[in-house]
Protein backbone atom coordinates (compact mmCIF):
# COMPACT_ATOMS: atom_id res chain seq x y z
CA UNK A 1 0.00 0.00 0.00
CA UNK A 2 2.81 2.44 0.86
CA UNK A 3 4.59 1.64 -2.41
CA UNK A 4 1.34 2.14 -4.32
CA UNK A 5 0.66 5.48 -2.55
CA UNK A 6 4.18 6.66 -3.32
CA UNK A 7 3.79 5.76 -7.01
CA UNK A 8 0.46 7.63 -7.24
CA UNK A 9 2.26 10.74 -5.97
CA UNK A 10 4.92 10.27 -8.67
CA UNK A 11 2.17 9.72 -11.24
CA UNK A 12 0.51 12.97 -10.18
CA UNK A 13 3.83 14.83 -10.54
CA UNK A 14 4.39 13.23 -13.97
CA UNK A 15 0.94 14.40 -15.05
CA UNK A 16 2.08 18.01 -14.47
CA UNK A 17 4.84 17.50 -17.04
CA UNK A 18 2.44 16.01 -19.60
CA UNK A 19 -0.12 18.75 -18.91
CA UNK A 20 2.42 21.32 -20.14
CA UNK A 21 2.23 19.73 -23.59
CA UNK A 22 -1.56 19.42 -23.80
CA UNK A 23 -2.96 22.28 -25.84
CA UNK A 24 -6.35 23.97 -25.58
CA UNK A 25 -8.70 22.92 -28.38
CA UNK A 26 -9.69 26.30 -29.76
CA UNK A 27 -12.14 24.72 -32.21
CA UNK A 28 -13.89 22.86 -29.37
CA UNK A 29 -14.97 25.79 -27.18
CA UNK A 30 -11.41 26.30 -25.83
CA UNK A 31 -11.68 22.98 -24.02
CA UNK A 32 -8.68 21.03 -22.76
CA UNK A 33 -7.83 17.74 -21.12
CA UNK A 34 -7.25 18.41 -17.41
CA UNK A 35 -4.89 15.50 -16.90
CA UNK A 36 -3.65 16.60 -13.46
CA UNK A 37 -7.19 16.75 -12.08
CA UNK A 38 -8.06 13.45 -13.74
CA UNK A 39 -5.04 11.60 -12.31
CA UNK A 40 -5.84 13.05 -8.90
CA UNK A 41 -9.53 12.05 -9.05
CA UNK A 42 -8.80 8.52 -10.23
CA UNK A 43 -6.06 8.09 -7.61
CA UNK A 44 -8.21 9.61 -4.85
CA UNK A 45 -10.75 6.82 -5.09
CA UNK A 46 -8.09 4.10 -4.85
CA UNK A 47 -6.28 5.34 -1.72
CA UNK A 48 -7.08 6.01 1.93
CA UNK A 49 -8.13 9.47 3.12
CA UNK A 50 -4.70 10.64 4.44
CA UNK A 51 -3.04 9.80 1.09
CA UNK A 52 -5.90 11.48 -0.78
CA UNK A 53 -5.38 14.65 1.26
CA UNK A 54 -1.64 14.56 0.58
CA UNK A 55 -2.35 14.17 -3.15
CA UNK A 56 -4.87 17.05 -2.95
CA UNK A 57 -2.28 19.29 -1.30
CA UNK A 58 0.44 18.46 -3.84
CA UNK A 59 -1.97 18.72 -6.79
CA UNK A 60 -3.53 22.01 -5.67
CA UNK A 61 -0.22 23.59 -4.67
CA UNK A 62 1.52 22.87 -7.98
CA UNK A 63 -1.60 23.65 -10.01
CA UNK A 64 -1.61 27.14 -8.54
CA UNK A 65 2.13 27.46 -9.20
CA UNK A 66 1.35 26.52 -12.80
CA UNK A 67 -1.49 28.96 -13.33
CA UNK A 68 -1.37 31.89 -10.86
CA UNK A 69 -1.18 35.31 -12.51
CA UNK A 70 1.23 38.02 -11.41
CA UNK A 71 0.35 41.22 -9.57
CA UNK A 72 -1.54 43.94 -11.44
CA UNK A 73 1.24 46.51 -11.72
CA UNK A 74 0.81 50.07 -12.97
CA UNK A 75 -0.11 53.25 -11.15
CA UNK A 76 -2.89 52.59 -8.58
CA UNK A 77 -4.04 56.22 -8.94
CA UNK A 78 -4.98 55.49 -12.57
CA UNK A 79 -6.08 51.88 -12.14
CA UNK A 80 -8.27 52.51 -9.11
CA UNK A 81 -10.41 49.38 -9.55
CA UNK A 82 -7.79 46.70 -10.02
CA UNK A 83 -9.05 43.29 -11.10
CA UNK A 84 -7.97 40.58 -8.70
CA UNK A 85 -7.43 36.95 -9.62
CA UNK A 86 -7.79 33.90 -7.38
CA UNK A 87 -5.30 33.76 -4.53
CA UNK A 88 -2.57 31.17 -4.34
CA UNK A 89 -3.76 28.03 -2.54
CA UNK A 90 -7.44 28.01 -3.53
CA UNK A 91 -6.89 24.90 -5.69
CA UNK A 92 -5.77 22.90 -2.63
CA UNK A 93 -9.24 23.27 -1.15
CA UNK A 94 -10.93 22.49 -4.48
CA UNK A 95 -8.80 19.39 -4.97
CA UNK A 96 -9.62 18.29 -1.42
CA UNK A 97 -13.37 18.78 -2.02
CA UNK A 98 -13.19 16.78 -5.27
CA UNK A 99 -11.25 14.06 -3.48
CA UNK A 100 -13.91 13.74 -0.75
CA UNK A 101 -16.60 13.56 -3.46
CA UNK A 102 -14.77 10.70 -5.17
CA UNK A 103 -14.19 8.89 -1.89
CA UNK A 104 -17.95 8.96 -1.32
CA UNK A 105 -18.38 6.23 -3.94
CA UNK A 106 -15.27 4.28 -2.90
CA UNK A 107 -17.40 1.26 -1.74
CA UNK A 108 -18.80 0.92 -5.28
CA UNK A 109 -15.34 1.20 -6.78
CA UNK A 110 -13.99 -1.45 -4.45
CA UNK A 111 -16.67 -3.78 -5.81
CA UNK A 112 -15.19 -3.26 -9.27
CA UNK A 113 -17.86 -0.81 -10.53
CA UNK A 114 -15.36 1.62 -12.02
CA UNK A 115 -17.79 2.98 -14.63
CA UNK A 116 -19.67 4.94 -11.96
CA UNK A 117 -16.32 6.40 -10.83
CA UNK A 118 -15.43 7.32 -14.43
CA UNK A 119 -18.76 9.15 -14.76
CA UNK A 120 -18.26 10.86 -11.41
CA UNK A 121 -14.78 12.02 -12.45
CA UNK A 122 -16.43 13.95 -15.33
CA UNK A 123 -19.05 15.42 -12.97
CA UNK A 124 -16.32 16.35 -10.45
CA UNK A 125 -14.32 18.15 -13.14
CA UNK A 126 -17.42 20.10 -14.17
CA UNK A 127 -18.08 21.05 -10.54
CA UNK A 128 -14.40 21.96 -10.10
CA UNK A 129 -14.51 24.31 -13.10
CA UNK A 130 -17.85 25.75 -11.97
CA UNK A 131 -16.39 26.36 -8.48
CA UNK A 132 -13.38 28.13 -10.03
CA UNK A 133 -15.63 30.31 -12.16
CA UNK A 134 -17.88 31.16 -9.21
CA UNK A 135 -14.79 32.05 -7.14
CA UNK A 136 -13.57 34.40 -9.90
CA UNK A 137 -17.03 35.98 -10.05
CA UNK A 138 -17.15 36.32 -6.27
CA UNK A 139 -13.74 38.02 -6.19
CA UNK A 140 -14.34 40.29 -9.20
CA UNK A 141 -18.10 40.85 -8.87
CA UNK A 142 -20.49 41.43 -11.79
CA UNK A 143 -21.89 37.93 -12.42
CA UNK A 144 -21.86 36.99 -16.09
CA UNK A 145 -22.31 33.45 -17.33
CA UNK A 146 -22.02 33.18 -21.08
CA UNK A 147 -22.94 30.23 -23.29
CA UNK A 148 -19.26 30.01 -24.28
CA UNK A 149 -18.25 29.50 -20.63
CA UNK A 150 -20.81 26.74 -20.04
CA UNK A 151 -19.79 25.01 -23.27
CA UNK A 152 -16.12 25.31 -22.32
CA UNK A 153 -16.75 23.71 -18.92
CA UNK A 154 -18.95 20.95 -20.35
CA UNK A 155 -16.61 20.03 -23.21
CA UNK A 156 -13.55 20.10 -20.93
CA UNK A 157 -15.29 17.75 -18.45
CA UNK A 158 -16.44 15.41 -21.20
CA UNK A 159 -13.08 15.36 -22.94
CA UNK A 160 -11.25 14.69 -19.67
CA UNK A 161 -13.73 12.03 -18.58
CA UNK A 162 -13.10 10.05 -21.79
CA UNK A 163 -9.56 9.37 -20.57
CA UNK A 164 -10.56 8.13 -17.11
CA UNK A 165 -10.76 4.41 -18.11
CA UNK A 166 -7.16 4.70 -19.29
CA UNK A 167 -6.05 6.15 -15.94
CA UNK A 168 -8.01 3.50 -14.00
CA UNK A 169 -6.37 0.80 -16.13
CA UNK A 170 -2.93 2.33 -15.46
CA UNK A 171 -3.64 2.50 -11.71
CA UNK A 172 -4.79 -1.13 -11.62
CA UNK A 173 -1.55 -2.18 -13.41
CA UNK A 174 0.51 -0.18 -10.92
CA UNK A 175 -1.43 -1.67 -8.01
CA UNK A 176 -0.88 -5.17 -9.39
CA UNK A 177 2.84 -4.43 -9.71
CA UNK A 178 2.90 -3.33 -6.07
CA UNK A 179 1.05 -6.45 -4.92
CA UNK A 180 -1.99 -4.39 -3.99
CA UNK A 181 -5.57 -4.49 -5.26
CA UNK A 182 -7.69 -1.41 -5.93
CA UNK A 183 -10.84 -3.56 -6.31
CA UNK A 184 -10.43 -5.95 -3.33
CA UNK A 185 -14.12 -6.90 -3.06
CA UNK A 186 -14.42 -7.59 -6.80
CA UNK A 187 -11.55 -10.10 -6.49
CA UNK A 188 -13.22 -11.79 -3.51
CA UNK A 189 -16.58 -12.02 -5.36
CA UNK A 190 -14.85 -13.55 -8.38
CA UNK A 191 -13.13 -16.18 -6.20
CA UNK A 192 -16.49 -17.06 -4.60
CA UNK A 193 -18.19 -17.63 -7.99
CA UNK A 194 -15.32 -19.90 -9.06
Amino acid at each position, binding site marked *: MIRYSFITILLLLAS*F*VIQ*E*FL*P*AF*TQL*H*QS*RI*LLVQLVFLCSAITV*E*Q*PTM*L*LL*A*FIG*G*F*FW*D*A*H*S*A*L*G*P*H*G*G*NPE*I*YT*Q*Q*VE*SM*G*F*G*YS*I*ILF*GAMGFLMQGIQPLFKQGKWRVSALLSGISIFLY*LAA*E*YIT*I*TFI*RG*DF*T*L*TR*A*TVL*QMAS*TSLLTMLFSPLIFWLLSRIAKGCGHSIHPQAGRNRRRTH
Partner: protein
Amino acid sequence: MKPLNLIALLFFLGGSVWAFTRSDRAVREVQDGYFAAMSPFLRSGSKLESKAHAFRQETRHSKELEVELTAVRSSLGRLAMIESRFRELEHENERLRHALDYKKATHFNVVAAQVIRRQPTTWWQTVDIDAGEESGIGTQLAVLSNEGLVGKIDRIYKEQNRSSVLLLTDEKCQVSAKVEGSPEVGILSGQRGRFDGNPLLRLRFLSTDAALHQGQKVFTTGRGGIFQPNILLGTIDSVEKGALDSEALVRPAVNFADPGTVFVVLSADP
Protein backbone atom coordinates in the same frame (compact mmCIF):
# COMPACT_ATOMS: atom_id res chain seq x y z
CA MET B 1 -13.81 9.67 12.03
CA LYS B 2 -10.60 7.69 12.49
CA PRO B 3 -7.90 9.55 14.48
CA LEU B 4 -5.43 9.22 11.60
CA ASN B 5 -7.92 10.76 9.17
CA LEU B 6 -8.58 13.61 11.58
CA ILE B 7 -4.86 14.33 11.96
CA ALA B 8 -4.43 14.22 8.16
CA LEU B 9 -7.36 16.62 7.74
CA LEU B 10 -5.86 19.04 10.29
CA PHE B 11 -2.49 18.94 8.49
CA PHE B 12 -4.28 19.50 5.18
CA LEU B 13 -6.16 22.54 6.49
CA GLY B 14 -2.98 23.90 8.12
CA GLY B 15 -1.10 23.49 4.81
CA SER B 16 -3.91 25.24 2.93
CA VAL B 17 -3.84 28.21 5.30
CA TRP B 18 -0.04 28.35 4.96
CA ALA B 19 -0.39 28.43 1.13
CA PHE B 20 -3.14 31.07 1.28
CA THR B 21 -1.00 33.40 3.36
CA ARG B 22 2.03 33.40 1.01
CA SER B 23 3.05 36.86 -0.18
CA ASP B 24 3.22 37.76 -3.90
CA ARG B 25 7.00 37.47 -3.74
CA ALA B 26 6.88 34.03 -2.14
CA VAL B 27 4.36 32.89 -4.78
CA ARG B 28 6.71 34.11 -7.53
CA GLU B 29 9.55 32.14 -5.93
CA VAL B 30 7.38 29.01 -5.84
CA GLN B 31 6.45 29.56 -9.51
CA ASP B 32 10.11 30.09 -10.45
CA GLY B 33 10.98 26.81 -8.71
CA TYR B 34 8.13 24.99 -10.42
CA PHE B 35 9.08 26.17 -13.92
CA ALA B 36 12.79 25.60 -13.26
CA ALA B 37 11.93 21.97 -12.45
CA MET B 38 9.83 21.80 -15.64
CA SER B 39 12.45 23.44 -17.87
CA PRO B 40 14.35 20.25 -18.93
CA PHE B 41 11.06 18.69 -20.09
CA LEU B 42 9.87 21.87 -21.78
CA ARG B 43 13.22 22.30 -23.54
CA SER B 44 13.19 18.71 -24.81
CA GLY B 45 9.59 19.16 -25.93
CA SER B 46 10.37 22.33 -27.82
CA LYS B 47 13.41 20.65 -29.48
CA LEU B 48 11.21 17.75 -30.59
CA GLU B 49 8.65 20.19 -31.92
CA SER B 50 11.34 22.07 -33.92
CA LYS B 51 12.63 18.79 -35.36
CA ALA B 52 9.11 17.71 -36.35
CA HIS B 53 8.53 21.12 -37.96
CA ALA B 54 11.84 20.88 -39.88
CA PHE B 55 10.93 17.38 -41.05
CA ARG B 56 7.53 18.56 -42.30
CA GLN B 57 9.23 21.43 -44.15
CA GLU B 58 11.72 19.07 -45.81
CA THR B 59 9.06 16.71 -47.05
CA ARG B 60 7.18 19.44 -48.90
CA HIS B 61 7.02 18.83 -52.61
CA SER B 62 10.03 20.27 -54.45
CA LYS B 63 7.88 21.68 -57.28
CA GLU B 64 5.81 23.56 -54.77
CA LEU B 65 9.04 25.04 -53.43
CA GLU B 66 10.20 25.96 -56.91
CA VAL B 67 6.98 27.87 -57.60
CA GLU B 68 7.31 29.55 -54.23
CA LEU B 69 10.93 30.51 -55.00
CA THR B 70 9.96 32.12 -58.29
CA ALA B 71 7.19 34.07 -56.58
CA VAL B 72 9.54 35.15 -53.78
CA ARG B 73 12.18 36.29 -56.32
CA SER B 74 9.69 38.46 -58.15
CA SER B 75 8.42 39.88 -54.83
CA LEU B 76 11.99 40.58 -53.78
CA GLY B 77 12.65 42.63 -56.91
CA ARG B 78 9.44 44.58 -56.40
CA LEU B 79 10.23 45.13 -52.69
CA ALA B 80 13.74 46.35 -53.54
CA MET B 81 12.20 49.01 -55.77
CA ILE B 82 9.68 49.97 -53.08
CA GLU B 83 12.45 50.13 -50.48
CA SER B 84 14.56 52.51 -52.54
CA ARG B 85 11.47 54.73 -53.01
CA PHE B 86 10.75 54.44 -49.28
CA ARG B 87 14.28 55.54 -48.37
CA GLU B 88 13.87 58.56 -50.63
CA LEU B 89 10.56 59.48 -49.00
CA GLU B 90 11.96 58.89 -45.52
CA HIS B 91 14.83 61.21 -46.25
CA GLU B 92 12.47 63.82 -47.66
CA ASN B 93 10.14 63.43 -44.68
CA GLU B 94 13.03 63.87 -42.26
CA ARG B 95 14.10 67.00 -44.09
CA LEU B 96 10.58 68.49 -44.03
CA ARG B 97 10.09 67.61 -40.33
CA HIS B 98 13.35 69.33 -39.55
CA ALA B 99 12.27 72.37 -41.54
CA LEU B 100 8.97 72.51 -39.61
CA ASP B 101 10.62 71.73 -36.25
CA TYR B 102 8.13 68.84 -35.99
CA LYS B 103 7.97 66.80 -32.77
CA LYS B 104 9.85 63.53 -33.23
CA ALA B 105 7.69 60.39 -33.33
CA THR B 106 8.16 57.90 -30.53
CA HIS B 107 10.65 55.16 -31.34
CA PHE B 108 10.47 51.86 -29.54
CA ASN B 109 13.38 49.64 -28.64
CA VAL B 110 11.77 46.26 -29.17
CA VAL B 111 12.51 42.54 -29.13
CA ALA B 112 10.68 40.40 -31.69
CA ALA B 113 9.17 37.09 -30.57
CA GLN B 114 6.91 34.33 -31.79
CA VAL B 115 3.91 32.91 -29.98
CA ILE B 116 4.86 29.36 -29.04
CA ARG B 117 1.92 28.37 -26.88
CA ARG B 118 -1.65 29.56 -26.59
CA GLN B 119 -3.80 29.67 -23.48
CA PRO B 120 -1.87 27.35 -21.13
CA THR B 121 -4.43 27.93 -18.34
CA THR B 122 -8.20 27.53 -18.25
CA TRP B 123 -9.48 30.97 -17.34
CA TRP B 124 -6.72 33.45 -18.12
CA GLN B 125 -6.13 34.80 -21.62
CA THR B 126 -2.39 34.32 -21.96
CA VAL B 127 0.15 33.16 -24.54
CA ASP B 128 3.78 32.12 -24.19
CA ILE B 129 6.42 33.74 -26.40
CA ASP B 130 9.94 32.59 -27.26
CA ALA B 131 11.79 35.52 -25.69
CA GLY B 132 12.54 36.09 -22.03
CA GLU B 133 15.19 37.12 -19.57
CA GLU B 134 18.08 36.47 -22.01
CA SER B 135 16.56 38.99 -24.42
CA GLY B 136 16.35 41.62 -21.66
CA ILE B 137 12.62 41.16 -21.06
CA GLY B 138 11.11 41.83 -17.65
CA THR B 139 7.58 41.78 -16.26
CA GLN B 140 5.02 44.56 -16.96
CA LEU B 141 6.43 45.45 -20.38
CA ALA B 142 4.07 46.27 -23.24
CA VAL B 143 3.74 43.76 -26.08
CA LEU B 144 2.75 45.01 -29.55
CA SER B 145 2.07 43.59 -32.96
CA ASN B 146 2.11 45.54 -36.19
CA GLU B 147 -1.64 46.05 -35.71
CA GLY B 148 -1.62 47.45 -32.17
CA LEU B 149 -1.37 46.51 -28.49
CA VAL B 150 -1.33 42.78 -27.72
CA GLY B 151 -0.91 42.83 -23.92
CA LYS B 152 1.81 42.91 -21.30
CA ILE B 153 4.44 40.55 -19.93
CA ASP B 154 3.03 38.77 -16.89
CA ARG B 155 5.71 36.20 -16.10
CA ILE B 156 9.27 35.34 -17.07
CA TYR B 157 10.26 31.68 -17.15
CA LYS B 158 13.69 31.57 -15.52
CA GLU B 159 16.51 29.97 -17.54
CA GLN B 160 14.23 29.23 -20.49
CA ASN B 161 14.20 32.44 -22.57
CA ARG B 162 10.43 32.28 -22.57
CA SER B 163 7.78 34.52 -21.11
CA SER B 164 4.04 34.67 -20.61
CA VAL B 165 1.95 37.51 -22.07
CA LEU B 166 -1.33 38.57 -20.49
CA LEU B 167 -3.50 39.44 -23.48
CA LEU B 168 -5.56 42.60 -23.81
CA THR B 169 -8.63 40.35 -24.05
CA ASP B 170 -8.18 39.28 -20.40
CA GLU B 171 -10.27 41.05 -17.79
CA LYS B 172 -7.16 41.63 -15.66
CA CYS B 173 -5.24 43.48 -18.41
CA GLN B 174 -6.36 47.07 -17.84
CA VAL B 175 -5.20 49.91 -20.08
CA SER B 176 -5.74 53.62 -19.68
CA ALA B 177 -7.31 54.61 -23.02
CA LYS B 178 -8.47 57.70 -24.91
CA VAL B 179 -10.84 58.06 -27.85
CA GLU B 180 -9.61 59.83 -30.96
CA GLY B 181 -11.32 63.16 -31.66
CA SER B 182 -12.97 63.40 -28.21
CA PRO B 183 -11.94 64.31 -24.67
CA GLU B 184 -13.08 60.88 -23.41
CA VAL B 185 -10.65 58.76 -21.42
CA GLY B 186 -11.41 55.48 -19.67
CA ILE B 187 -10.06 52.09 -18.69
CA LEU B 188 -10.06 49.39 -21.34
CA SER B 189 -10.05 45.68 -20.47
CA GLY B 190 -11.22 42.32 -21.76
CA GLN B 191 -14.51 40.70 -20.86
CA ARG B 192 -14.98 37.63 -18.69
CA GLY B 193 -16.11 34.45 -20.43
CA ARG B 194 -15.46 35.70 -23.97
CA PHE B 195 -13.15 33.23 -25.65
CA ASP B 196 -14.20 33.37 -29.29
CA GLY B 197 -11.64 34.49 -31.95
CA ASN B 198 -11.73 38.25 -31.47
CA PRO B 199 -13.86 39.20 -28.47
CA LEU B 200 -14.91 42.80 -27.89
CA LEU B 201 -13.22 44.84 -25.15
CA ARG B 202 -14.90 47.06 -22.54
CA LEU B 203 -14.02 50.75 -22.27
CA ARG B 204 -15.37 51.87 -18.90
CA PHE B 205 -15.64 55.07 -16.84
CA LEU B 206 -16.55 57.34 -19.77
CA SER B 207 -18.63 60.44 -19.07
CA THR B 208 -22.44 60.06 -19.12
CA ASP B 209 -22.77 62.30 -22.16
CA ALA B 210 -19.92 60.69 -24.11
CA ALA B 211 -20.49 61.63 -27.76
CA LEU B 212 -18.83 58.66 -29.43
CA HIS B 213 -19.65 56.93 -32.66
CA GLN B 214 -18.84 53.63 -34.28
CA GLY B 215 -15.43 53.44 -35.92
CA GLN B 216 -13.64 56.02 -33.74
CA LYS B 217 -10.15 54.84 -32.90
CA VAL B 218 -9.05 54.12 -29.32
CA PHE B 219 -5.43 54.69 -28.24
CA THR B 220 -3.40 54.33 -25.06
CA THR B 221 -3.05 57.51 -23.01
CA GLY B 222 0.40 56.64 -21.70
CA ARG B 223 -0.81 57.20 -18.12
CA GLY B 224 -0.66 54.32 -15.67
CA GLY B 225 3.03 53.50 -15.95
CA ILE B 226 2.94 50.40 -18.17
CA PHE B 227 1.91 51.26 -21.72
CA GLN B 228 3.46 53.95 -23.90
CA PRO B 229 1.09 56.62 -25.33
CA ASN B 230 -0.67 56.53 -28.72
CA ILE B 231 -0.62 52.78 -29.29
CA LEU B 232 -3.70 51.68 -31.22
CA LEU B 233 -6.09 49.53 -29.19
CA GLY B 234 -9.11 49.23 -31.44
CA THR B 235 -12.22 50.99 -32.72
CA ILE B 236 -15.50 51.85 -31.03
CA ASP B 237 -18.21 49.29 -31.79
CA SER B 238 -21.11 50.54 -29.65
CA VAL B 239 -21.79 52.78 -26.65
CA GLU B 240 -24.02 52.03 -23.65
CA LYS B 241 -25.02 55.03 -21.56
CA GLY B 242 -25.53 54.55 -17.83
CA ALA B 243 -26.78 56.74 -14.99
CA LEU B 244 -23.32 57.41 -13.54
CA ASP B 245 -21.02 56.73 -16.48
CA SER B 246 -20.97 55.29 -19.97
CA GLU B 247 -19.34 52.21 -21.38
CA ALA B 248 -18.22 51.43 -24.91
CA LEU B 249 -17.52 48.13 -26.57
CA VAL B 250 -14.29 48.24 -28.55
CA ARG B 251 -13.30 45.98 -31.43
CA PRO B 252 -9.59 45.17 -30.91
CA ALA B 253 -7.12 46.22 -33.59
CA VAL B 254 -5.10 43.03 -33.17
CA ASN B 255 -6.30 39.71 -34.53
CA PHE B 256 -5.92 37.67 -31.33
CA ALA B 257 -6.72 34.43 -33.15
CA ASP B 258 -3.39 34.82 -34.95
CA PRO B 259 -1.18 37.61 -33.59
CA GLY B 260 1.85 36.37 -35.59
CA THR B 261 5.13 38.03 -34.63
CA VAL B 262 4.91 40.22 -31.54
CA PHE B 263 7.28 42.88 -30.21
CA VAL B 264 8.13 43.45 -26.56
CA VAL B 265 8.85 47.14 -25.87
CA LEU B 266 12.03 47.34 -23.80
CA SER B 267 12.14 51.12 -23.82
CA ALA B 268 10.70 54.05 -25.73
CA ASP B 269 11.90 57.56 -26.53
CA PRO B 270 10.09 60.09 -24.36
